[in-house]
């Protein structure tokens, strides 16, 4: 079995993703960065962008996250995001519902999700 790293994606309302994978690519505020097992301990600020989980050299899960912070240790990475959406499970109808009385930040986020899907 290939070397894996434990990934947790947490938002204020739920634990969105918690599993092991070969690699995860995180949208840092200084640019995208990939995290493989035994990555150096890092604390990185994040910006809006897609978070890709890789297994067998292919993307297996995609999330859109809206800012936050990533806490990377050699054996695990924790991503704290204020808003996050699973791009494989999201429906346009649900997104439109969210747009009703949404704040500017939310509207921008929902539009970004639509673009990414």
């Amino acid at each position, binding site marked *: 079995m290939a070397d894996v790293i434990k990934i*947790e994606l*947490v*938002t*204020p*309302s*739920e*634990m969105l993703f918690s599993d092991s994978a070969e690699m995860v690519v995180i949208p*840092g*505020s*200084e640019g995208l960065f990939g995290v493989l097992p035994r990555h*150096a*301990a*890092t*604390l*990185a*600020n994040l910006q809006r962008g897609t978070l890709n989980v890789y297994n067998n050299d292919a993307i297996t899960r995609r999330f859109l996250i809206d800012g*936050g*912070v990533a*806490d990377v240790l050699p054996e695990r990475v*924790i991503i*704290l995001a*204020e*808003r996050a959406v699973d791009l494989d499970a999201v429906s346009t109808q649900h997104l439109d519902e969210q747009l009703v009385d*949404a*704040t500017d*930040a*939310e509207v921008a986020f929902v539009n970004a999700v639509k673009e990414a899907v």
Partner: protein
Amino acid sequence: MANLKDLKTRINSVKSTQKITSAMKMVAAAKLRRAQESAEANRPYSSLMQQVISGLASKASKATAPELLVGRETVKTHLLIVVSADKGLCGGFNGSIARQTRLEIKRLEEEGKSVLLYMVGKKAADNLGREITDKIFERVENLQGSNLDYNKVDTVSQKILTGFSDTSFDHVSIIYNQFVNAITQNVAVTPLIPVQINEDKDTGASNYEYEPDENELLEQLLPRNITTQIYSALLESFAAELAARMTAMDNATRNAGDMIDSLTLVYNRTRQANITKELIEIISGAEAL
């Protein structure tokens, strides 16, 4: 001796009250489960956030650290965020918040500080009434509920952050009911600015790489941490409110039951006494012939 018709009416009215209280108890119990789940779902996020901030704070140089972390040197004004319920009928829930707030205001004023209040929820503001009209910084109602919106909490914390940078106040703490379990709630006073840090926990922060540097990260994270803390306090408070309501309504239902029993006893005694009296009248009437 009360007459039978009055007693009957009273029994019926207590019975319908009992129906209401037991329905409210059931509703609170059902909602409580969901509120508890969402409070628990929030715990990983807020505890991880705390952990990250504590690690960063131990690394940041005290001289250049943001005011949100270390606080201001001279503290003149305190902001208290008071979290109570929008609705009553939940036992001592709102009363204990109001009492704690009063104590806290008294304590701070004795220290020569002035106090501002951010009232979340209707009931504590009603309870404190005129005592606090000159101290209100902001009031918000209908914020809590089954689906607490993170973005709405964010607008609350934005107002607080703006107020802090305008030096409207120099210290912020939040008063809310902590959910311990379904029968216990605890009034907690937690400081938000400056941030409370568990120094004892070794987070192994010494060999972290920071991207961007520590201070910039802290500046990004501290405002978010305020929102997170308020958010989790509101979730806890809502769960505690429902738990308090459930217990209060359970007691009310039981008391109504006791009352119905004793009223029924009086009713039956009165009925018997009436029958006996009528019999005596008939018999003595017959004897007189």
